[in-house]
């Protein structure tokens, strides 16, 4: 399957938006080549602002641009855009509900060799907790383009989580992407895997393996973490009674947290969260790190088996 990094797709989508809408402006913090805002900067130099290594100032400036009618897209690594500038995002962007889009790359452990200081496994939680913030975690290039366009088209703050490595292109160009609407990629009645970002393709692989064992697994692509598709979550809770969540993020506060909160509130069933178990990342090759932290199809298979045991024990 063809592989494209979501950050690459972001760079292309920005260029497209730049041509269509003169109000789209882009800010970066000395990482334009990595976040892929560089091409936008080349084509629209007057609408591109490299703020230097100053993420807080980047977010604050974007707030001002948005308050004056522009549609700013801000990019840096996820750890710096959401972590370093968190309080600026909260008080200058989310609190006044300004039209700022934060598109951050190098999320998760697939950053690789740079190590734990650079691997954001908290950003979904940080952004999800903010009232009015939309949170997109695209699984592939097609979804990234759709999320970027949706973000530009809606009024209010949006966080888009992007990755460094190439990931399989799962979707057709004709994808019907609706913010807040999960995409069911596979049906099944025994258990459901809610996956986001790079874990979506792994969830499909796991479901394939489990089908071979006679276990029917539903796979949902959660490109939007907020607003969460609660209907899809509750439907799966009722119809399968066993849920696994999968994310390249801490199991605290991210997709797993959101799904568990929803299930607990309305229809409690066992929820098994796959992600980083309250630890930081570390240096290594992306593939080694995925293995090290259990972000693999094999791990999802055992997670489904685990949650099925819990369901049977009820």
């Amino acid at each position, binding site marked *: 399957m063809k592989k494209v990094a979501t950050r690459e797709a972001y760079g292309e989508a920005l260029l497209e938006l730049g041509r269509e809408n003169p109000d789209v402006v882009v800010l*970066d913090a*000395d*990482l*334009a*080549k*990595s976040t892929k805002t560089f091409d936008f900067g080349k084509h629209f130099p007057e609408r591109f602002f*490299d*703020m*230097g*290594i*100053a993420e*807080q*100032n980047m977010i604050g400036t974007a707030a001002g641009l948005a308050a004056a009618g522009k549609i700013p897209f801000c990019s840096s690594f996820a*750890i*710096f855009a959401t*972590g*370093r500038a968190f309080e600026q995002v909260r008080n200058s962007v989310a609190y006044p509900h300004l039209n700022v889009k934060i598109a951050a790359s190098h999320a998760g452990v697939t950053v*690789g*060799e*740079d*190590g*734990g*200081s*650079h691997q954001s496994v908290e950003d979904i939680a940080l952004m999800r907790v903010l009232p009015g913030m939309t949170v997109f975690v695209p699984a592939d290039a097609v979804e990234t383009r759709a999320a970027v366009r949706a973000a530009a088209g809606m009024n209010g703050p949006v966080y888009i989580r992007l990755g460094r490595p190439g990931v399989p292109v799962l979707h057709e160009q004709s994808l019907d992407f609706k913010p807040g609407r999960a995409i069911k990629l596979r049906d099944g009645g025994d258990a459901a895997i809610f996956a986001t970002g790079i874990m979506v393709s792994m969830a499909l692989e796991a479901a394939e393996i489990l089908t071979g064992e006679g276990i029917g697994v539903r796979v949902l692509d959660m490109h939007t973490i907020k607003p969460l598709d609660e209907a899809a979550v509750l439907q799966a809770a009722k119809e399968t009674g066993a849920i696994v969540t999968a994310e390249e993020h801490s199991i605290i506060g991210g997709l797993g947290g959101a799904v568990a909160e929803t299930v607990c509130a309305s229809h409690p069933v066992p929820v098994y969260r796959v992600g980083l178990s309250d630890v930081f990342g*570390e*240096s*290594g*090759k992306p593939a*080694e*790190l995925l293995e*090290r932290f259990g972000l693999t199809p094999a791990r999802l298979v055992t997670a489904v088996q685990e949650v099925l045991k819990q369901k049977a024990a009820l």
Partner: protein
Amino acid sequence: MATQEEITRLEEKARQLRRHIIRMTGAAGSGHPGGSLSAADIVAALYFHFLCLDPARPDWPDRDRFVLSKGHAAPVLYAALAERGYFPVDELLTLRRLGSRLQGHPDMKHLPGVEMSTGSLGQGLAAANGMALAGRLDGRDYRVYALLGDGEIQEGMIWEAAMAAAHYKLDHVTAFLDHNGFQIDGPTRQVMSPEPVADKWRAFGWDVQVIDGHDMAAILQAVEKARAVTGRPQMIVAETVKGKGCSFMENQVGWHGVAPKPDEVERALAELA
């Protein structure tokens, strides 16, 4: 004044650090050679002439401290720590590997001799200030050195720390600015100019010297002078060349965060022999 012999010894140490930087990043296949090479002379002067340390007791309370605020230059720090005896020199080749103590950016939790975990730019100077404040409270006379990048000082927190160090009269803090003129997106003057740097630090209440950051005698003299300053923190603006010592890397923005390939490692080592 240091003798010519001592200067020559330190120059050879700096060359040795540079060879390690090339080998380590080459073996890792990733990492940041440019900003490690530009800082090699400063780090050699500190670790092999000034810092009062005991590698057998990394937590000795009276030791001098060095904070690598520009944490991506980890290779130059690791090379100095290994040469100083904190861990075997062979371990340098594990840089950035899964399970290595030599993380992509310095991790004080795992590697002895690392005084502060860094990598997120802009945070090291504040930590250095904290160490100096603690030293003052405890009646200890150790000094704290910090190394900052000229792109890094675009971070607002650097200037918050600059203000605090002067406010609290932290004369045991000596910072270096690796003024190599480049960051990732291009020359610092084009991306987000931090100039004029010396005037800014002076305006923030620091004692400021501007030196050639590759002239060992000048580095030694500047630190001696800084140590004699009382009542104020000291900034040594070191005019440096990014990629120094490896001709094809010098002043090339592309060598910020790219590792040399095997043939490039050979060429670089030949130049640094």
